[in-house]
């Protein structure tokens, strides 16, 4: 065996990957070659230090729950609201019709509650160090093109610095298991994440504020887009932000 061969095979020896025959060959070479013996000792030493250090990363709890949430739920032992309604729907044609409406309403609200909680989680996550923005710029003409090609729909990026809300940058995020754009603003020390996703409905949906985990979330729909503005700002200031944003967007469209 040559030293070149031994230099590679000694790793397999170190990792217990060699069969008995090859292991003997490598050991025989090492016994007769001080340089290769020193290399083996040095690699063994490094492997020991690597094993002593904790080099693994733990997945954040938020990631675990995000993945859990994206999996279809197993059927539970107890009847769910859904299956109760389904049973009810099978009763008669008339009640079936009525029940479908109820099912749709119940599910939609569940859905919205889930998305709201995802939006708030995404906001929380963005506040961790280094997560806030993928592109940092106070210039809307830098932030907007950055989204192009990354998403099916590029979010509107509007500079509201003159109105008291500073544009900080943009970020890709995941809501409802889909990539969506987040535009980041700041007022004083408060961060506002504006999440924008596409929707099939083009109807205008009035802004509505909900509170979750101490954050205000104002949600509205316009021009085929759904918006969620999340912040620890007070509800009145968040409403002001949404009004200013909508006004500026209207001016943009008409101008």
């Amino acid at each position, binding site marked *: 065996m040559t030293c070149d061969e031994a*230099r*590679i*095979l000694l*790793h*397999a020896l170190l*990792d217990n*990957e060699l069969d008995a025959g090859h292991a003997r060959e490598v050991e025989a070479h090492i016994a007769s070659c001080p*340089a290769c013996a*020193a*290399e083996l*000792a*040095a*690699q063994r*030493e*490094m*492997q020991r*230090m*690597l094993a*002593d*250090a*904790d*080099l*693994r*990363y*733990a*997945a*954040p709890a*938020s*990631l*675990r729950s*995000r*993945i*859990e949430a*994206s*999996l*279809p*739920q*197993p*059927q539970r032992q107890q009847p769910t609201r859904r299956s109760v309604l389904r049973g009810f729907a099978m009763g008669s044609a008339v009640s079936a019709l009525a029940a479908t409406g109820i099912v749709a309403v119940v599910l939609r609200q569940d859905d919205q509650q889930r998305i709201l909680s995802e939006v708030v989680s995404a906001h929380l*996550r963005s506040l961790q160090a*280094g*997560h806030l923005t993928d*592109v940092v710029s106070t210039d809307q003409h830098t932030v907007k093109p*950055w989204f192009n*090609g*990354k998403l099916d729909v590029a979010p509107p990026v509007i500079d509201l610095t003159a109105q008291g809300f500073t544009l900080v940058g943009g970020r*890709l995020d*995941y809501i409802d*298991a889909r*990539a969506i754009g987040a535009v980041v603003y700041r007022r004083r020390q408060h961060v506002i994440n504006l999440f924008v996703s596409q929707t099939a409905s083009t109807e205008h949906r009035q802004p509505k504020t909900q509170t979750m985990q101490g954050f205000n979330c104002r949600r509205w729909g316009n021009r085929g887009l759904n918006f969620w503005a999340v912040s620890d700002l007070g509800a009145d200031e968040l409403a002001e932000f949404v009004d200013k944003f909508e006004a500026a967007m209207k001016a943009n469209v008409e101008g």
Partner: protein
Amino acid sequence: MPATDDGQKAQRFREAALPYLDDVYTLARYLLRDASDAEDAVQECYLRALKHFDSYRGPAMKPWLFAILRNVCNAEYARRAHRPSAIEDTPGADEQTPLWQETEASPETEVLRSRDAGAIRKLIDALAEPFKETFVLREINNLSYREIAEAVGAPVGTVMSRLARARAMLRAAWRAEEEQAK
């Protein structure tokens, strides 16, 4: 009922794949060197894995998940390449070559000083691909050579030589830092 099937499939998937979340996340962190990119990649990996779970025939879940993660990460590399403000690129093989040669030249017996995990992670992060990937799969994710070969789609011989080179590069970089500290 299809909904029940989906639920049962998801339950089987949960039991088979979720225990490896930390492993998959660890590999993603080393490959992408960015916490939030790693999170996105891992989530995408699990979504794809669930989608293809029907065609999963084993034997080992970990290499299978890693193979999917690698594809996701490759897409992320491509995205970064198009992004002008990309975080520093993986150092090219050229930059790594002197370190490798230095190993040959310097005394083999010199003992490394032990370092904390943060410092070692940085040294590993700086390794060039595909050596880093092979190294992390073996040394941190504890895969056998055969499993690594399966995950990266390369012959076992290639895995072996990449690993030898990765360890030599790491040791050289480790020692180079000690030299600088002197």
